[in-house]
């Protein structure tokens, strides 16, 4: 009796587990399913949700405007999204499940370079195209993979426009502090920034890598003050940058200019800092301007309004990038005239169209190339200041001491 219990149990567990494999989801005949594993919960969920919202809004809008037509037949788009709980391992398994069990047609990406780096190995393994708008690290695209495409501009060039701007500021900063987190994206940014700084003839007095999710920047800030760095470039995550700025205030560290790879474009960030966000520089490859025309949303400004009405928060480049991913797949399907993964992959590689995110075209390695516009928080709002070669408006420079704000 009890041996039956002991050995019956593993068999029962097996049977239960096997039943999991039998429920294969069947997509409707006229549906094209896009699958993604996104960070809906977990430490980076506050940015991860931009992607789910973007994919949903795009799919809904495209369906509202008539869906897609392939080979004379009309299709609607459907989404299958899993929550990877900000766990890379889980996201890899979920992408594998999307491809092998759920049999989705095409893949959309997660947020963050380290996720995209790991998850694209799945799309490559199963040869299903993935268009991701969350990973900018050059590493993702330097492996010769054919099935991953990215709509975020290369990490190595994030500070490109900023550095060009530095030289045109008056008085020009001469001592640079470069701080970067130790994840794939930020290391890529730093590796790209160093040669740019050298070419610009700027001296780097501090060049430090810090642990992701660090919360204590006091020592680094004291070093910045002591070495009298007048321009501080930080490549990190929103929460770190938030801590950085607050601690800079409490330690009375105010360089002439500081610029961050993330944070400034996003509403939560500016709200969390309140008045302390003023003067901070950042960059974005996207602004909700009406000059960016789009086949489904009209233009970027209308998109931003639709987003705000639906979700009650402002979109930023993550959102636009996510929408661009869906549009790229749809355009590629239409161009290829089929749902065959290889044909669509080839069509994606040859993408060339205007969208609310900008001009969509991928380089040979699969990554888009867009210029970053330098923005600054002026009067609580992000203002476009420098477009890579000239000033679009005056920069509020140099940053005054904290006591004098």
């Amino acid at each position, binding site marked *: 009796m009890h041996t039956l219990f002991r050995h019956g149990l593993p068999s029962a567990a097996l049977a239960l587990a096997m039943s999991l494999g039998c429920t294969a989801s069947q997509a409707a005949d006229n549906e094209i399913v896009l699958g993604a594993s996104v960070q809906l919960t977990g430490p980076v969920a506050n940015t991860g949700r931009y992607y789910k919202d973007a994919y949903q809004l795009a799919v809904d809008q495209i369906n509202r405007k008539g869906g897609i037509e392939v080979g004379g037949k009309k299709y609607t788009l459907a989404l299958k999204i899993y929550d990877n709980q900000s766990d890379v391992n889980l996201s890899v398994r979920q992408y594998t499940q999307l491809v092998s069990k759920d049999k989705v047609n095409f893949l959309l990406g997660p947020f963050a370079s380290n996720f995209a780096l790991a998850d694209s190995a799945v799309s490559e393994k199963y040869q299903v195209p993935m268009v991701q708008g969350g990973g900018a690290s050059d590493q993702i695209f330097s492996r010769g993979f054919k099935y991953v495409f990215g709509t975020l501009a290369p990490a190595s060039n994030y500070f490109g426009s900023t550095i060009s701007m530095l030289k045109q500021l008056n008085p020009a900063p001469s001592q640079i502090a470069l701080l970067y987190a130790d994840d794939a994206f930020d290391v890529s940014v730093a590796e790209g920034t160093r040669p740019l700084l050298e070419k610009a003839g700027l001296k780097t007095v501090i060049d*430090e890598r810090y642990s992701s999710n660090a*919360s204590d920047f006091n*020592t*680094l800030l004291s070093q910045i003050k*002591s070495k009298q760095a007048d321009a501080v470039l930080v490549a990190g995550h929103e929460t770190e940058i938030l*801590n950085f700025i607050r601690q800079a205030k409490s*330690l009375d560290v105010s360089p002439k200019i500081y610029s961050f790879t993330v944070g400034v474009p996003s509403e939560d960030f500016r709200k969390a800092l309140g008045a302390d966000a003023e003067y901070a520089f950042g960059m974005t490859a996207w602004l909700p301007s009406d000059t960016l025309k789009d086949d489904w949303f009209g233009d970027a400004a209308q998109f931003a309004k639709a987003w705000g009405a639906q979700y009650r928060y402002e979109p930023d480049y993550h959102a636009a990038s996510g929408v661009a991913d869906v549009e790229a797949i749809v355009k590629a399907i239409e161009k290829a005239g089929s749902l065959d993964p290889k044909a669509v992959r080839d069509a994606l590689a040859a993408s060339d169209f205007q969208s609310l995110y900008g001009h969509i075209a991928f380089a040979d390695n699969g990554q888009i190339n867009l210029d970053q516009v330098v923005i600054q928080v002026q009067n609580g709002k992000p203002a476009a200041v420098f477009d890579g070669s000239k000033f679009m408006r005056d920069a509020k420079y140099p940053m005054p001491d904290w006591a004098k704000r």
Partner: protein
Amino acid sequence: MDLLLQVLVNGILQGGLYAIMALGLALVWGVLNIVNLAHGAFIMLGAYISWYSFTWLGLDPFLGLPLTAVLMFFVGYAIQRGILNLVARAPMFNTLLITFGLEVVLTYLAQLVFSADFRTINPSYSGRNITVMGLTIPTVRLAASGVAILLTLIMWRFLLHTRLGRAIRATAQNLSAARLYGVEPRHLYAVTFGLGLALAGAAGGLYGTVSQINPYIGATLTAKCFAIAIIGGLDTPLGVIAGGVVLGLIESLATLYIGPTFADVASFGVLVAVLIVRPSGLLGRTA
């Protein structure tokens, strides 16, 4: 030289905050022999309570500490009475597992209720600082350290010199004898755990003023608190001050002289070293 002094000051101030964070853990562990792997999650909870009081009621985080502490006390009492008391006489390992389970549950519940967005407690005076001899001292950190030291001293006095304190220590040392004296151990254990969580809650409130909060900070905070408690020694509540300051200094100096990514290597490395060489910690009585 100035840089070094500033970094040392930063480390010491950080140490004050660390001390209050670990105090609750050290109390419960040293006195009740309950190793609470969920301690960091309770700090996180206290931070959220503080945040809500600040945002909804406009209550200043420092002034609101008593409220946070009282609320967390009741949470602690309930948890000890309802769950932890059930395994109090089982091997220690069971307590470790169950508190770990609690940590997982709390983190998920926090994420469900509070969402993953990070929050900050930003009173109007948050960025202020004073300059002393060329060194910049952030006032909030200074105040937090001050509160931490004060609470630690109060706890020390409480345990050694008040009736309730002595009753708690007696119960922990000899359960049956304490019962003979009319002590109700279930209630006393719950009170002690409640105190531990009250302190964790207060630490959370202070933490929220200097760092941002989100549901996931629990695990890292627990690890840090363990390091602080062990390095300082569990035999006296004053140990957390020693442990906190030492940890703060180690992290700052490691960052300054080796690199920011080595701060964790240094702090956990010291923890392992202390465990191997002198498990009773810096202020521990037994060699």
